[in-house]
């Protein structure tokens, strides 16, 4: 066991478990590391498909029951002819569910073919709505990140990888303990629209991405605490294995290796040594 590891007796078991993991490398250090993630909110305009609403249905049914003049429909509903709720008639006309005509100075309505289809729920209404889309972003891998799914899962070809690990995201600004951390370098202020759309559509199967509302994105720094296992070869070259430990996930099972993160951290510390 190297000197450094000796200073951290709590990692003794880890040392024993992983000391021989890499041929030609000696396990030289084990430490806790905070890796950067982002908690983001971005307003997304998405297309929805819905049945017609209850009020539209009531008006259509009333017309269908042969009450066709604006005056009589309003009387039946108990509202004034210019009541604030009469905007719904405009909605029906605009969506071509009814057509209006003036007979003897009175507005009359007739249900269209489409109107009947909507009434019978054979047709759905398309509209846009703005959704505040909350998502997590992996700063190092610059990719979307679902904390319920293992970080390596998407790139791992084996499908038997566990799903519900649920990573613990901590608010970086409130972490006061001094442990090694990699700074947040890649704030996701501009995300590739196609990637965003794909991820959004995955998260909201009932909605379809239309566009970003604006360029604006709210991004807050978050960190996940991992275990970094340092190996050194005879030339002094270091490589790091990033593994889950109790502070990383809600349900801890074993110290799974996070391959992609390991590669990134190794590259990072090669550029900016500890």
């Amino acid at each position, binding site marked *: 066991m190297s000197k450094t590891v000796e200073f951290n007796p709590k990692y003794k078991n880890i040392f024993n478990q992983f000391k021989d993991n890499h041929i030609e490398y000696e396990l030289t250090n084990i430490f806790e590391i905070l890796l950067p993630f982002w908690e983001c909110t971005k307003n997304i*305009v998405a297309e929805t498909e819905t049945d017609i*609403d*209850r*009020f*539209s*249905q*009531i008006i259509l*049914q*009333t017309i269908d*029951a*042969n*009450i066709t003049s*604006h005056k009589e429909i309003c*009387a*039946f*509903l*108990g*509202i004034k002819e210019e009541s*604030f*709720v009469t*905007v*719904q*008639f*405009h*909605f029906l*006309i*605009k*969506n*071509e569910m009814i057509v*209006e005509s*003036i007979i003897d*100075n009175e*507005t009359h309505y007739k249900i269209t073919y489409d109107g009947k289809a909507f009434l019978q729920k054979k047709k759905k209404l398309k*509209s*846009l709505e*703005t959704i505040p889309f909350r998502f997590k972003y992996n700063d190092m891998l610059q990719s979307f990140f679902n904390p319920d799914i293992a970080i390596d899962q998407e790139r791992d070809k084996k499908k038997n990888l566990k799903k519900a690990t649920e990573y*613990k995201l*901590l*608010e970086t600004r*409130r*972490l*006061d303990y001094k442990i090694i951390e990699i*700074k*947040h*370098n890649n*704030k996701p*202020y*501009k995300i590739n*629209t196609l990637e965003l759309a794909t991820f959004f559509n995955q998260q909201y199967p009932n909605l379809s991405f*239309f*566009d*970003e*509302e604006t*360029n*604006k*994105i709210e991004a807050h720094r978050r960190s996940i*605490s991992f275990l970094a296992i340092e190996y050194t070869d005879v030339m002094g070259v270091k490589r790091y294995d990033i593994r889950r430990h109790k*502070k990383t996930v809600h349900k801890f099972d074993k110290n799974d290796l996070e391959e992609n993160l390991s590669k990134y951290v190794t590259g990072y510390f090669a*550029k*900016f040594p500890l």
Partner: protein
Amino acid sequence: MNTIGEFLIIQNLKHFNNEINLWLAESSDGSSFEILTIKSETHKKQQVERILKNEIQFLSKKDIPGIQKIVQVDFDETQDHHFVVYEGGSNFEYSDELSIENLIQVLKGLDHLKKGNRFGYYIAPDALSHNLDEARLRFVGLYDVFKLYNLLDNQYLAPEVIDGNKPNFQSDIYSIFNLFKSIVEDCNNETIESIFTKALSKQRIERYRNYGEVILLLEQTLKPIRNNTAIKIIVKDEYRESFKPVLEEMNRSCFLKLNEQLTKEKRQITGQFATGNYGGRFFVNGEGYIFVLANKISTPHHTISENGFLSPYGFSFEPLQYMNCFDFFKINWQETNQLARLNKAKSSNLKKWQTLPKMEREFIEEKAFKAKYTKCNVSKTNNTNLVFTLTKGFKNWEQIKVLKRNEVKLIIDDNEIGKIHDYNQGTDTLIIKDAYLTIEEIPKTGELIEDVKIETSQYKKQVEACEKFVNRDVVNPDLCTILATPENVPEFNHIPLEYQDFENEVFNPYLKTDDTQREAVLEALHRKPIYLIQGPPGTGKTTVIVELIQQIIKRNSNAKILVTSQSNLAVDNVLERLLPTDILFMRLAASEDRISESIKEHSFYTKLSNWVTNTQKLSEQYLDSQITTSKVDKALLKFYKSYLNVKADKKRDFNDFQNLLKIQNRYVKGFFENAKNFKEVDKIFDAQIQTKTSKLQSIKQEWFAFLNNAQTPADKNKKQSMINNGSEEIDLQTALLKSTNVIGATCIHIASGQYNDIDFNFDYVIMDESSKATPAENLVPINMGQNIVLIGDHKQLPPVITRENAVKKKIKIELEDDGLDMEKEYGESLFEKLILEFEQNPNLQNNIKMLDIQYRMPRQLGNLISKNFYKEKLKNPDITILPDYDQDKNHGLKLSKPNTKFIDVVTKKEIEAPTSVIMISTSNAESPYDNDNKFKRSNNCNKDAIKQILAEINKQYPNNINEEEPKTIGVIAGYRGQVELLEKSIDVKKYKNFNTINPNGRKESLIDINTVDKFQGAERDIIIYDIVKSSKGKSNIGFLDDYRRINVAFSRAKKLLIIVGDSEYILKRATLNPKSKFEEFKLKTIVADLQQQGVIVNQLKELL
């Protein structure tokens, strides 16, 4: 046509056909507008009305880049025309010289509209206007109107629209690219050509799927700034790669804004930049390059492009030739500082205004419970609870007990942590139940603080209002300059008004005989954007406000008006007077308890439920009236309604139906005896009741269910009832709020978070009692208005700065830091400051008016008030116009001196009027002196005198409670200590002739005792004013030197004022404090006048 609405037609810009025209027009203040008029034949009128209401109204007053702003939509009854008013722009016109930039601007506007579910426009050359910098589309929302009048131009319509389909946004893409086709003809750029080809695809589906995509492509075709020289840019090596897209955009278009302050150590110029997608900060290095904080790149802030300048140079890491940008930035920085100096006066005012709420907030926060902890653990018994170990020696356990009982939340570093579950004094621990933060997120040591967000929210809103005001992030930014620096306002809005014609236009006939009231209304309508009305006591402020509201709505039936004040009572006073009119209003308040009884049915919460009840009632009545069946059939119908309920309830089944059947009469039972299931029952009903009726019953049931869900907040299982106008879906409560003309709310409540979804943009904000509000309180509603009318009276009580001495101290320190003096700065309200400045600035003198006839007080008292407090400008009513005035103001006491002579302030001649002011002097009493306790000043002698007066008055009005309007009495004392003494010693219910029964059946006295502050805005028939202060030797009069208090106290009287005090003391021994800011001893002058008029006696009896 010469006029339309309130606008003067200048010339015809476009004659579409005999019904539709576009005009150049002018408003009364000389601003120019473009107005589209639509004269509808009867059969089209309703359709036009519907389109304008639903398509245009919602866009009114909204600033959408690339779209010509809609100012007003209305109907002119005289001309029988609908009209849409657009913001003018004389330098805008259509020409062939269109650019990609112009196209992008318009597409961005359409993109904005599409994201709000709006699309399908009239797009043709006459719908586009542009100048060198800007292009904008007009007539948005009017496609159906142009279609109705066969005015669509096929040349620009998408093929599918020509084929008869409704246009969608891809049809708009086709039309707009068609309109800009001239660009592609001479651009010789393959990328642009391909963009146009796709946009102009014959098949809708082949065109762009959203605007964002095509805008991005077009932006990429814009040529980057090409300069031989560029500014050298440096970023940290590790960010160089990720910074490249930012650099690329910086070279396309980059706004720069320099900060006023240099960096502290290196004295470097710093600034911010903004491109289309990115924003960041930079430092200018003395060696001639800029250093960018590449790790802190964010989205662009709009203020940079609004207030900054466009960089004339490109940027590069290693330019072939790079300029030494130091001089360039130095010149720009100097300009920035010059501007900053100009704004200094403005900033200093705002700093002052902001200090008060900021300090009030700090004070509450400082007072809040705090406890330092040294350790935090997860509870062993429940892992969602956290155990905090407090510092040793913590003593404030009593407060913890209170916080636990009151379920107060605690916070750490501004983050809520939870409520106290338990505490243990022995182990110095405190347990937080179901903590909102995880143990990792909680600092190891820190401080637990009581959450006082609710208590501080009103101050927070005021500070926010000040900040918005500084940033001009308000509905009408022009107001920021006028209010902050009225002394610098140049000439504006000087227009001649038709005062004489207006006499015939007023709604309230009383205004015909009151010039200043009438003028105030007319001027408030035209002297925009700010108008001040000084309303001395009883001069009809509320009358003026009500008339103003009626006149605004007459001119713009869709106008949105906020009636506001610092107090709920003042808001209700106006709304109560609106009740008999047809004006739609809604009252917003934090709780129903704060609203007057008569207004409650119009509150945000009650109005909708009343509407629902009424709607259901009318609907029920309608359906009943349609059924003309016999009595027995009606029984069947009644059973049908119950059946529908059983059927709709999923928990009930056919057995429930059978049970229901058992209790029906034999006639009804006969039909269903053999029915085995619901299906068979339905068949029988259909056969027995007319199908239409049964159908309608079932629709009605669905409608009622919809209505009943109107106020239920949506949750997972239940959807709230919503309505939809084709673009947005909103709940009924918000829809109802949006449909009302007038909203009444206090100036703080209107900023409440519960209305966050509603974009308040009022045409007029009318604020009553403005002189009683602090500047920060004033700013909250001012920020929401296009035009402001402030009503107040700076000769009455000023705003209460703060009641806490600790806050005063804090303000003093903060202001002294900036060389400001608290007494001087807060001695006057914003209203007073403005009115005094407006009086001095000839450009603003037309924007103020003092209402100068008082109708509350009898003439002797009115004269006294005018002479002493209003420089003799306040007049009594002309008794040739109101011959019964003296009779109406008669107090009914048979005085031995029925009339008093005095010099009339208007005619300067001696006149005689009924005696209405008397003084009961205690000078001859054994000990007329007060207790000389400056913390709780009281005077026993005066108390006894008041008791005697009340007893005598009670005797003099034996039939008071049986009168149509029984007399009321207000006893006002100058000092809180005396009020306490009077309240303790006088049992008001003892004066039986002043006891009445209130609507709740409780006995209530018509006599009130209170301080003057509590009486502002109120009035009583008889006012007894207790001076309290008296001493054996000479002494300072104390805070009675503030004549505004005396003014308010005396002017509350409608019929009689009785002053009680030691007249000898006031006349001979009382002096003004030499340090007092008031130069005149008004009380002394008044007592001297009363002595001269011979109305000072030792006892009331002497005068009877």
